[in-house]
């Protein structure tokens, strides 16, 4: 029996349409839009101004605090302006807009392909390099990587867990990088291990990617302390709490962090970014994005510079299908539907998913029939129907007592509801209100 997390979870149709399509480098766009807040934490502060000439890899915005991240220019060209531009969430955010002019890289970046396995740098050097390079979690949560690696006093970490689960349907970017950049992942993992002083790392991969599991297993012997583990396919196994439970049978306490059970979880794409930053001096300026959907002509995995508009990616994959009803930045379970197509790819963009008109519509909402499917699929052991009722009744105290803050917003409840009750919509409302109440209590 393959390992998995024990409680809850769903298994949506996988639809990994682009799993067999190799990573293709996307041509440079004419203009890039770089939001200064592409990560969890304080926005970065722009250090360029209108008219400045930048190279690929030039720092354009500096980390705005401990939990924040540097941002580098993904192209060479001229800063057109710094302005508030709509990003994929639909809000306008401060962004640096650069007109692209060629592709001249910073001199200190090693653009060669040869593998550098030398992990001689000290833990501090590694962490500093990661912080300088603006690396954040590429799985979608975009938490700054150097912060995760800084283990606070009194905590001990014994495992790095590489999240290569890719449990979201449709997405295949992680799958492809495992097939095409396996050695970089391994070296990156070793750097992460060294960066927070642990001896062991586990790469968790769901069993729907047997070729990736086989490939990584073949080369794992060359790298000390790294093991590869196949996992039963179940959403949301890529949630870090679920992944730790599945791999190590440790339960992150309610309200706690993976650190509390001795783990640091990093996405597999992040491992590559760490490799490139530490070994090649290359900041995080590009990433692999899956462009997919049943109506998409040529589903693809594209290596894209940050700041490229989603519309360019869609053009590259055969253009926007005629009956498109919804375009999602990310996967179908947790991604955000975008209001317009010229929003930029950011560090957290793992996919562009196109739904036709029929797929875009939510079903008719019936009365709740108390089937309790939401209760049985909740991986956090919550009662979504109860939370939804409490949020609807604005009973914030009950919501807090019922642990609404433990919700990981995986969407399994709304997905499974036969009555199409928008459970997670209400739970999000409850979560944000309760978190405001908790914050005001602290002040």
């Amino acid at each position, binding site marked *: 029996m393959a390992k998995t997390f024990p409680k809850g979870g769903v298994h949506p149709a996988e639809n990994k349409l682009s799993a067999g399509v190799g990573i293709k480098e996307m041509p440079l766009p004419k203009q890039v839009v770089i939001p200064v807040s592409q990560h969890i934490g304080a926005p970065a502060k722009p250090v360029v101004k209108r008219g400045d000439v930048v190279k690929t890899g030039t720092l354009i915005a500096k980390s705005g605090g401990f939990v924040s991240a540097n941002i580098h220019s993904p192209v060479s060209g001229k800063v057109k302006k710094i302005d508030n531009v709509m990003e994929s969430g639909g809000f306008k955010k401060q962004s640096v807009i650069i007109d692209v002019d060629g592709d001249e890289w910073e001199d200190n970046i090693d653009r060669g392909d040869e593998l550098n396995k030398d992990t001689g740098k000290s833990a501090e050097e590694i962490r500093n390099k990661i912080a300088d390079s603006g690396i954040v979690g590429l799985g979608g949560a975009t938490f700054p990587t150097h912060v995760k690696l800084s283990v606070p006093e009194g905590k001990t970490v014994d495992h790095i867990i590489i999240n290569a689960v890719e449990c979201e349907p449709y997405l295949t970017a992680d799958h492809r990088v495992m097939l095409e950049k396996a050695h970089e992942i391994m070296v990156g993992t070793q750097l992460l291990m060294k960066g927070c002083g642990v001896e062991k790392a586990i790469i968790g991969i769901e069993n729907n990617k047997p070729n990736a599991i086989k490939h990584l297993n073949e080369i794992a012997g060359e790298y000390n302390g790294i093991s590869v583990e196949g996992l039963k396919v179940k959403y949301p196994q890529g949630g870090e709490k679920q992944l730790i439970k599945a791999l190590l049978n440790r339960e992150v306490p309610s309200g706690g962090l993976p650190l509390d059970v001795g783990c640091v979880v990093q996405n597999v794409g992040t491992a590559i970014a760490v490799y490139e930053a530490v070994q090649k001096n290359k900041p995080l300026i590009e990433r692999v994005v899956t462009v997919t959907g049943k109506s998409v002509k040529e589903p693809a995995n594209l290596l894209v510079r940050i700041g490229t508009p989603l519309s360019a990616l869609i053009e590259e994959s055969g253009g926007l299908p005629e009956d498109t009803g919804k375009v999602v930045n990310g996967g179908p379970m947790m991604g955000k*539907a975008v209001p317009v197509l010229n929003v930029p790819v950011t560090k957290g963009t793992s996919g562009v998913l196109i739904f036709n008109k029929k797929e875009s519509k939510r079903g008719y909402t019936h009365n709740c029939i108390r089937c309790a499917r939401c209760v049985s699929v909740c991986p956090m052991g919550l*009662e979504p129907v109860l939370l939804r009722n409490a949020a609807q009744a604005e009973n914030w105290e009950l919501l807090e007592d019922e642990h609404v803050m433990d919700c990981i917003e995986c969407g399994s409840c709304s997905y499974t509801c036969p009555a199409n009750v928008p459970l*997670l919509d209400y739970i999000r409302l409850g979560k944000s209100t309760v978190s405001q109440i908790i914050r005001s209590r602290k002040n």
Partner: protein
Amino acid sequence: MNTNNLSVSLSPHMSHKDSVKSIMYTVVIALIPAFLVSVYFFGLDAIRVQALAVAACVFFEWLFQKFLIKGDNTIPDGSAILTGVLLAFNVPANLPWFIIVIGALVAIGIGKMSFGGLGKNPFNPALVGRVFLLISFPVQMTSWPKVQVLNFAMTDAATGATPLAIMKEGIANGEPVSKIINSMPTSYSDWMLGEMGGSLGEISALALILGGLYMLWKKVISFHTPVAVLGSIALFTGILHLVNPEIFAGPGFHLITGGVMLGAIYMATDMVTSPMTPKGMWIYGIGIGVITVLIRVWGAYPEGISFAILIMNGFVPLINRGMKPKLFGAKKEDK
């Protein structure tokens, strides 16, 4: 293409294929074997009762929804049809038409729509209808037509008692259980297939179990409630039978005769009126089993599962409050 009309909604952007409708019709499909058995043994009467009950339930659902609740048409969700089928399953096949209509009115009107419609009713609507009829029309509700294989003549068939009633009366008269069972016209193997007096849909344990397995496979019910009900009945009556086999019938008799299979598999598992967590379902199911045996053995009625389910329906909100799922990463004090 014009991209000004993209839909924007919160995640998730996918939905499981099961709907309220598909769940309701899955249960209806699961009831088909038992329905066929009822036609086999009760002839056209079974079809008459079934059709009338469904039509009346659908009509009252439409009426109350349109004029009382004033909401969207809820007929297509299939729940009124299911209530109709289950109501018919719970009455004798020779029930006069007006009693069936009254049963449908009570089931849908009082049992369901007065609480706000599907999903809001605390008690199983079909059972509310059945119990109302049992109390209001005790004679008609307990005169069971004798089973006759494939008799479509629509003649007034003779009536006879159910095995449970024969057993109850025999024990009251001081006869030993073994003798009562031997005196009955049919035996265990006949009962499994449905050859016994009883309500239209309850007679064949085999057909009901078949439908139950289909629902388990379709994940419309979980095994907890039926296993808890049947297991607790078997255990309780087994103990009684061991204590004194002459005055207490054994678990085999209690499981196969009467409405236990229908109740445990189809009525107690009604999603709306049963608990949410497996822990809760165990308590609920055991409660039903124990109350059923208490009524059957010591109560005034030969059969008690309808009352048992309705009584335990009343405890469901409390059970839900007490039996919560285990929180992921629960701290010691939360447990």
